[in-house]
């Protein structure tokens, strides 16, 4: 393989400025919404004493989960020695940091007291999985930062593998930690499952790669750099494998839950008669975010750039739907204070709660994506994250167009 040459993008075109402007505006609207929410209290959101975590959490958790998944491409290069992914490693690291920053910003701004950030960072209850997560996130920034430095600095290159290895291990722990935030809530039936943590890890693979693909293909198209099928095809198939794995884990999750009589209520709720949550589950998570992308990724149907982009967008939408069902659906189903009894009270005991996200919450949620893209767009202008070319001849001279051959999963996918 040839040496890879990276360069910054020019970033002088009208399109670039416009892009920065759009992402900046999305971010600004989010901050405005957060100020509004803090001033008036959470009464201006759809959240209440029943649904205590709303749409901002959906975006935040999605982005944080995707952050660790976005690092996957780099890990495959450094840890698993896949040469093809090596030129992509820098962008992979950048996206990981940008996604985490976006997710954390939303999480922070949705606090009842975001002004107490200092307290959140100085008072620790080490028993709390939440506090542990704060440490995991800080560590992730640091490790990925070091990892990027090793990649950028020629004399540090030899350490890339070690740094990549640590970042890889850390990200696995991080996603386990995020999943455990829910796993620890034994009183909530939807989360009372050991499979929660591995499910989050596999979700992170899919979400992270979908965002990576989307950013990669669009930035190459907009900067008129070449990106060949050698890269895109492999990532497409890899995405297919990840989407299939998520579906598999979701299946196992629900099957195991169905074994536990105690959990039949919540299962019925999500799968059958939960109204909006059932719809989001089947339509959003399974169909749009699962089956259609699966088809696009693993069959010749998706063998064109627009189709690959579509698959990535669908996986992202489906991912948001999945996190929505987990977080909001899990809360909408009432806590069982008295198993087997009908329960009612002025505090909505025993009732399925209604939740309607308000406009400020949507702004705040979307600002997480805005922040991520703002950071990314800005960073590729100031530092050489993108290889000059990802054309077939540059990344894999032996690549042959398989469009007439089989389209089975590649070896890379199997090792991932």
């Amino acid at each position, binding site marked *: 393989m040839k040496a890879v040459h990276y360069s910054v993008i020019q970033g002088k075109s009208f399109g670039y400025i416009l892009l920065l402007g759009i992402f900046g505006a999305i971010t600004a609207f989010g901050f405005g919404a957060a100020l509004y929410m803090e001033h008036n209290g959470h*009464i201006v959101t759809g959240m209440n004493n029943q649904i205590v975590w709303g749409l901002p959490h959906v975006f935040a958790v999605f982005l944080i989960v995707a952050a660790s998944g976005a690092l996957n491409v780099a890990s495959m290069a450094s840890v698993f020695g896949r040469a093809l992914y090596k030129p992509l490693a820098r962008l992979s690291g950048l996206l990981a940091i940008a996604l985490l920053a976006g997710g954390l910003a939303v999480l922070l701004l949705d*606090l009842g007291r975001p002004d107490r950030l200092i307290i959140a960072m100085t008072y*620790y209850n080490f028993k709390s999985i939440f506090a542990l997560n704060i440490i995991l996130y800080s560590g992730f920034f640091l490790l990925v930062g070091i990892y990027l430095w090793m990649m950028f600095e020629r004399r540090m290159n030899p350490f890339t593998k070690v740094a990549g290895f640590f970042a890889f291990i850390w990200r696995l722990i991080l996603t386990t930690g995020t999943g455990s935030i829910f796993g620890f*809530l034994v009183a909530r039936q939807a989360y009372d499952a050991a499979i929660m943590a591995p499910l989050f890890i596999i979700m992170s693979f899919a979400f992270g790669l979908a965002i990576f693909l989307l950013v990669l293909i669009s930035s190459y198209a907009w900067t008129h750099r070449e990106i060949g099928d050698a890269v895109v095809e492999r990532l497409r198939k890899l995405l297919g494998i990840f989407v299939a794995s998520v579906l598999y884990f979701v299946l196992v999750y629900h099957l195991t839950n169905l074994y536990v009589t105690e959990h039949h209520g919540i299962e019925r709720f999500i799968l059958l008669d939960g109204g909006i949550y059932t719809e989001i589950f089947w339509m959003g998570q399974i169909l749009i975010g699962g089956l259609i992308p699966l088809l696009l990724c693993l069959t010749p149907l998706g063998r064109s750039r627009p189709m690959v982009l579509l698959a990535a967008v669908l996986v992202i939408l489906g991912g948001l739907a999945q996190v929505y069902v987990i977080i909001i659906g899990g809360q909408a189903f009432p806590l069982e204070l008295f198993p*087997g009894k009908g329960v*009612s009270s002025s505090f909505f*005991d025993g009732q399925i709660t209604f939740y309607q996200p308000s406009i400020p919450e949507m702004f705040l949620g979307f600002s997480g994506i805005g922040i991520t893209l703002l950071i990314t767009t800005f960073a590729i202008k100031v530092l050489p994250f993108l290889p000059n070319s990802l054309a077939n001849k540059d990344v894999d001279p032996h690549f042959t167009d398989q469009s007439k051959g089989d389209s089975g999963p590649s070896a890379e996918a199997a090792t991932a």
Partner: protein
Amino acid sequence: MSIGRRDFLKASAIATTATAFAPGINLIELAAARNPEQAATAIHRWGLLIDVNKCVKGCTACVDACFIENGINEKGSPTTDAQWIRKVTTKDKATGHEQIFPVMCQHCEHPPCVDVCPTGASFKRKDGIVLVDKHICIGCRYCMMACPYKARSFVHQTLTGQNHNAPRGKGTVESCTLCVHKIDRGDGITACADACAGENHKAIIFGDLKDPRSEISRQLKAQASSQIRADFNLNTGVRYRGLS
């Protein structure tokens, strides 16, 4: 066997220290009320016993008294207004038999809210009362997710007319304090228990679970009682009698 000089000195030092401090410890142990400078001690464990059969349908004396005592006065938004105590109705699905009784923070010995709280704002006092430190709470609401009893409320809006005994704050989480301010000044009863007794229903007994001579301990010893979701092994400080 001979005792060396140094050993002898050490032993006498320990003995002297012990005699000097022991009476002090005793004093704290025996006092029912403590002044605000003294820390709560593990000598007590405060709790409630709620007799489901004595609780009267339609009566909201305990709830009203709690709201007045603690300055809970937001109205008009049922889904977001705080409720530190609520009347719950259960109905046996097979027989249709109904029971009505108050539910509040159960003041667990192993409170899940305290375990999950990232900053340590949720804490349990030595005397078993579970509280939120309003100055450290960042309003993450993880404790509300973790509480199996739905006992906590988040303050969704700016508050007016607060009671200085029970400071509250927008953007933080709160729940029943077991009228900690009343306990600490030696009232020996919570607002809810007081109000219930005032109605002559006597469905709520407040007292020290660790004092075998207390009314609550004697009642618990005399008759069967239960905890809500005892299967979680949280060892709640609030017990129920007659819960079917």
